[in-house]
């Protein structure tokens, strides 16, 4: 598993909260730093891809295990 600079627990939250919390958490990071997000909302898989594509923050990792979805985003330059 990749290292990360900050972690966000978005488990139990439903749309659009995981994305909104992620956006907020990214604000606290500097360019190039990474954020790991754990979510349980099945809609998050597509939403995080869409969020990364539209905001320019790179989705470095995306995984699923035991009903939990994990994402690692790298804050854009």
């Amino acid at each position, binding site marked *: 598993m990749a290292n990360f600079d900050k972690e966000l627990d978005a488990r139990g*939250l*439903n749309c*659009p909260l995981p*994305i*909104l919390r992620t956006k907020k958490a990214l604000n606290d990071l500097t360019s190039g730093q990474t954020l790991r997000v754990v979510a349980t909302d099945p809609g998050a898989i597509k939403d995080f891809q869409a969020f990364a594509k*539209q*905001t320019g923050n790179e989705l470095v990792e995306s995984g699923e295990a035991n009903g939990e979805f994990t994402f690692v985003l790298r804050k854009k330059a």
Partner: protein
Amino acid sequence: MTTKKLAIIATKGTLDWGYPPFILASTAAALGYDVQIFFTFYGLQLLRKSLDHLKVTSLGNPGMPMPMPMPVLLQALPGMQSMMTAMMKQKMKSKGVASLEDLRNLCAEADVKMIGCQMTVDLFGFNPSDFISGIEMGGAATFFEFAGESDICLFM
């Protein structure tokens, strides 16, 4: 890259219909959009300081999933609307859906501009102190000033 713009007209004042404008506005803001919501007619209820008065109703809404089949006339009995509202709030909480107040706060934090329809305020005799702070009042022309340059414009 120029900033994309989203303009929304919110016209409904029920608990369920309060969600679409705030969900889309907050998400668009998180994606970097410049967002304005124009609240008109019943939509103005969404700008009241407290949103506790918002309700859901199954009347005239055959699409609402019911825990058990129920004749429409029974649904109209006194107390049913409050009961359904309480059940809906409970369900939303248990599923991790944000409260309307939370979403509205997130919109405000993300600089979503909220405009109340002055004509509706006059029509229903609302008091400016009924509403949250940080909003503006305006008319149709005010809305078009932003909507005319928007990339997406939604009526809800």
